């Protein structure tokens, strides 16, 4: 019955990740880490140790889904390069550091991020930038569902998230502050609209800029849709310049098209929904 005769010698249990300290090579302030098959705890511990020891550039190769890279890292001036697929909750609670991902990012990147910068050269997944209260997230490709959900500004903290491709439903849902920009210039599926439905649903602060146009049915009930005028394009321009520099793109080309600005009609959209007893 069994086809055991053809099989290789008995294997041990296959491990997804091993709980071992990754191999590190130091060259002055630059450290190179081989994350291949290393469990996230040991990997992140190593990154934190390197930063504490003065490394200003940590280049991580062989990343494949390890979670929490740079999570809670408050280290202005530190740059982390991720080569591979960044795992869930990358840069969660991060403040100050920069993470540049050469590959795709899974779900929940920039979750509740306070500051710093995340650059994704591939696509990013769902719930990108959830509750972000500061810093920058730049994505070259497409993003998933519920991106920029409940992004909020507070005093001098103004979060900015720019997607070069297209977004799925609930982009900017509950948005309370900051800036979301959707360019639709890259991305795989030309046939799909630039954004899904429920764009800005429940939005009560901040602004969403979409390169080109969106249909009213794509948007939440609480937003006003208009073409961005000079004043708003002026606010957008420095963000696009920074994004273009990070992505090696041409600012003028990005700005060559009209932008649609989506902004809340009220800071208290549901004031009339309730009848106090």
């Amino acid at each position: 019955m069994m086809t055991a005769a053809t099989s290789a010698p008995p294997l041990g249990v296959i491990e997804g990740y091993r709980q071992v300290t990754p191999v590190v090579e130091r060259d002055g302030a630059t450290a190179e880490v081989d994350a291949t098959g290393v469990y996230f705890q040991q990997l992140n511990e190593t990154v934190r140790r390197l930063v504490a020891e003065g490394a200003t550039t940590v280049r991580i190769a062989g990343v494949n889904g390890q979670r929490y890279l740079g999570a809670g890292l408050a280290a202005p001036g530190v740059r982390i390069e991720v080569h591979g697929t960044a795992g869930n909750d990358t840069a969660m609670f991060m403040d100050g550091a920069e993470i540049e991902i050469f590959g795709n990012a899974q779900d929940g990147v920039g979750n509740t991020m306070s500051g710093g910068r995340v650059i994704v050269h591939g696509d990013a997944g769902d719930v990108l930038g959830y509750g972000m209260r500061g810093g920058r997230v730049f994505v070259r490709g497409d993003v998933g569902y519920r991106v920029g959900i409940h992004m909020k500004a507070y005093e001098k903290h103004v979060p900015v998230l720019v997607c070069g491709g297209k977004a799925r439903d609930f982009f900017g849902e509950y948005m309370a502050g900051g800036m979301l920009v959707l360019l639709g210039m890259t991305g795989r599926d030309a046939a799909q609209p630039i954004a899904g439905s429920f764009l800005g649903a429940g939005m009560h602060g901040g602004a969403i800029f979409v390169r080109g146009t969106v249909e009213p049915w794509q948007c939440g009930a609480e937003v006003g849709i208009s073409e961005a005028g000079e004043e708003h394009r002026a606010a957008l321009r420095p963000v696009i310049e920074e994004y273009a520099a990070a992505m090696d793109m041409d600012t003028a080309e990005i700005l060559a098209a009209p932008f649609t600005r989506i902004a809340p009609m009220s800071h208290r959209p549901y004031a009339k929904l309730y009848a106090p007893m």
Partner: protein
Amino acid sequence: MQQTFVQPEFRVKIDYDKCHKCGRCVQQCGWGVYDFTERPIPHDEKCRACHRCVTYCPAHCITIEKNTLAFRDNDNWSADARKAVWTQADSGGVLLTSMGNPKPYERIFDKLVLDACQVTNPSIDPLREPMELRTYLGRKADSVAVEPDGTGGFRLAGDSGVARNIELAVPIVFAPMSYGSVSLNVHRSIAMAAERLGVTMNTGEGGMHEDLYPYQDHIILQVASGRFGLSPEVLKRAAALEIKIGQGAKPGIGGHLPGEKIDRDVSATRMVPQGSDAISPAPHHDIYSIEDLRQLIYALKEASGYRPVGVKIAAVHNVAAIASGIVRAGADYIYLDGFRGGTGATPQVVRDHIGIPVEIAIAVVDQRLRDEGIRNHASIIAAGSIRSSADAAKAIALGADAVAIGTATLLALGCHLCQSCHTGNCSWGITTQRPELTRRIDPEWGAERLTNLVNAWSHELQEILGALGVNAVESLRGSRERLRAIGLDEQTCRILGVKPAGL
């Protein structure tokens, strides 16, 4: 005339220091409580505690109190029981009353609680995410047949039945109340609200006044034993037809609209002579058995161009088997009216002692139709009494497709549940045909209040669905797993198909 033993139920008190002597109370009261000689003088025995005068008194100087005469304590012979004997000894009559059963029977809705999501599945934000309440009432196929559409996709092959269903934007409809029992302005208010809300109103058995024709796509025309107001024309105007077998407030009892309520308009709408009584027999005399019901259902379908036909029954002991028969007789929906359901006039003994709670009726009917594999063949509308969105949600979770609101509808228009509709003197202008009273309801105002009410309940239903982690009402419908019982006995839990809290 001999002195009655029955003392006034209420005492009307006027703070004459504050009274403007304006006479507004005299003008507002439909019961003739007040005389006016320099100042208003109330006759307590006429007061129904409807609060019309209280509401409109500019000086806020009127209060209505219970007449708290002391009786010798007797848990067996309540004050009401004694009064009933005296009243009947006075008159020899059947005690007549209105609205629904007020007795302290167990209120099952109040012993059921709903679930919410925590951690293992997420609740959903009902304000910003889709939260769908749309409901289709009527017969549906058990499965959907499709065929290739030639472009790589599929299209319907055959009839799913859905195209002939009644589409409701929300699973709350207005219960049947006839023109005659309520005023035309009430009908207009409800019809306008039904259209704005994307739901239905129901004529009751008094026919469809021509003022309602603009809203006919949202009107269910009732066919009751009196067959009032039925013509081939209105049969084809209505969105659906409903055979009324019984109603929760008076199962097994007919109706009687007194001649004095049959004015010119009511006469024209009911197609009966002005001033003569309009009597609805207890049974339909062409339905003495279930096969006769089938005969009438198909007669109505034939005559109306195959509009959906529903059947309204009072919830009684054998309701599950009856409902099964109704579905197999071809009904598109069953309207289950529980024993708390209201009416414009009913013998008190019938209202208070006949019928079963709608919660039980929903549970056993829904289960019976599932057991027989015919649940898709008809929808269930539950009523009597749905007091809040919570009741609606619980009724739907037990298995109802939609709920109907009658008493709540009238409350929204000013009704204070004084249970005196049968007098025809409703001071709020609802259950009367006296022109000076009926004009108190401005249809535009009424429509707005009803629209507000159903919108508010709909928002609340969405809140409940969101907490339950579902975004469409069909995922709550019949999902008894999301209900738990507190303080219901095991047998009742078993009948309801609901577990006790903690399990």
